[in-house]
């Protein structure tokens, strides 16, 4: 359980980091380290070079300008969880982060690291997809903005190059009469979830759904949005019938299975989590039927 040998680099700026990554062969970027360090200790990862981006101040912080939120890629999960300003605009982040690992791993773990590791059950990539967010990356070819919908290319494979680093995540929040909620089921608190669901919705003055977004994590290699069901829900009251419409979004999905959880079981759990999240989101938006 000891890491292999590697050369250690600690760039002080984004430009230094990208210059190093362009030059070095077989380098890994060390963000919060809460996935890379176990992979090093178990020797799943065998980099010749580790580029530690923890001392680049411009990569951290939360900025709120109107409805637009920017979270630096190296912002610690614990700092996102604790941000009262973010909680006021997007309370689902605090709620979902309580399921991310444990206090000790959230002290170090970052949102950019979570996105770049892209575990299928990870909560933060699911939230970025829920908010139609954008991941900003920089590399030798300059800056790129990657929409959340294009971020997951495959199993633990995000759309970022080995010579690029993520710099920030941006997304917009809704205002008005809105609600959001996150639910997941894991065998033990902090374990990777069997499935999880995030819902945000906005009601019009008549109490009908004006806008809705629903995301599932754990069911496929990357977060899944239920876009057809979302469209079908607009204009409806957020009642029990609406929850049935929401759950119908799971019907066409091919769901992951593993030794502990069959696809059918995981799909069932995802549906239960979705219904719970939908109900709570509707309640926090002030609906009476849910």
């Amino acid at each position, binding site marked *: *359980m*000891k*890491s*292999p*040998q*590697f*050369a*250690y680099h*600690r760039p002080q700026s984004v430009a230094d980091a990208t210059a190093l990554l362009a030059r070095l062969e*077989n380098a890994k970027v*060390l963000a919060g*380290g*809460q996935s890379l*360090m*176990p992979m*090093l*200790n*178990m020797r799943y990862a*065998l980099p*010749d*070079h*580790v580029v*530690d981006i*923890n001392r680049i101040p411009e990569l951290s912080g939360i900025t709120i300008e109107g409805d637009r939120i920017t979270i630096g890629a190296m912002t610690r999960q*614990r700092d996102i969880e604790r941000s009262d300003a973010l909680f006021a605009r997007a309370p689902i982040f605090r709620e979902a982060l*309580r399921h991310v*690992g*444990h*206090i*000790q*791993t959230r*002290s*170090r773990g970052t949102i950019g690291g979570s996105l770049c590791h892209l575990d299928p059950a990870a909560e933060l990539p699911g939230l970025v997809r829920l908010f139609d967010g954008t991941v900003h990356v920089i590399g030798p070819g300059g800056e790129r903005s990657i929409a959340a919908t294009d971020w997951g290319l495959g199993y633990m494979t995000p759309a970022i190059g080995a010579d690029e680093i993520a710099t920030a995540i941006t997304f917009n929040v809704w205002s008005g009469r809105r609600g959001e909620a996150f639910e997941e089921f894991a065998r*033990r*608190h*902090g374990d990777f979830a069997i499935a999880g669901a995030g819902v945000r919705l906005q009601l019009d003055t008549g109490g009908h759904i004006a806008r809705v977004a629903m995301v599932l994590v754990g069911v496929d290699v990357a977060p899944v949005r239920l876009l057809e069901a979302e469209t079908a829900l607009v204009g409806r009251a957020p009642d029990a019938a609406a929850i049935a419409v929401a759950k119908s979004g799971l019907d066409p999905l091919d769901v992951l299975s593993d030794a502990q959880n069959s696809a059918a079981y995981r799909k069932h759990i995802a549906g239960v989590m979705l219904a719970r999240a939908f109900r709570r989101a509707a309640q926090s938006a002030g609906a009476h039927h849910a």
Partner: protein
Amino acid sequence: MHDPTPEAGKARHAISLTVNGTAHAVDVDPRQHLGDFLRQTLQLTGTHLGCEHGVCGACTVIVDGAPVRACLILAVQADGASVTTVEGLAGKEGALHPIQSAFRAHHGLQCGFCTPGMLTTLAAFLADNTSPTEAEVREAISGNLCRCTGYQTIVEAALSAAQTLRGEG
């Protein structure tokens, strides 16, 4: 292909950090994690290493006020940091930290292997929140495995220490 040049892999890095109030300036191997650095280099063997992949929580130490897993941070990354291990929880002349006294009073340990991580985790948690609910205490130690106590006595100790820290003890 994993073929680092020997010089590159073995290049040591000079770091300065404070551990339990004592300043240290040491050269470290980049691959050494903070847990091994504390135990092997500084001979502070109070920090226990269980799984070394971030699951058991036994190696928890407090870095710049935040509880972290010492197996999941490189020693070289602690350059400039202030680290508190279980050896640093007690006050001057060995007066136990309230969480340590509470563990003794409530039998919060049996074999003792998880205890350093439990104490550091709870000391950091109680520094943030001196009025936790039982559910909050259980969530706070959800990343620390104990195979002896069933957690009940640990939770009781934490709630009792919180009372002491609020000045009600």
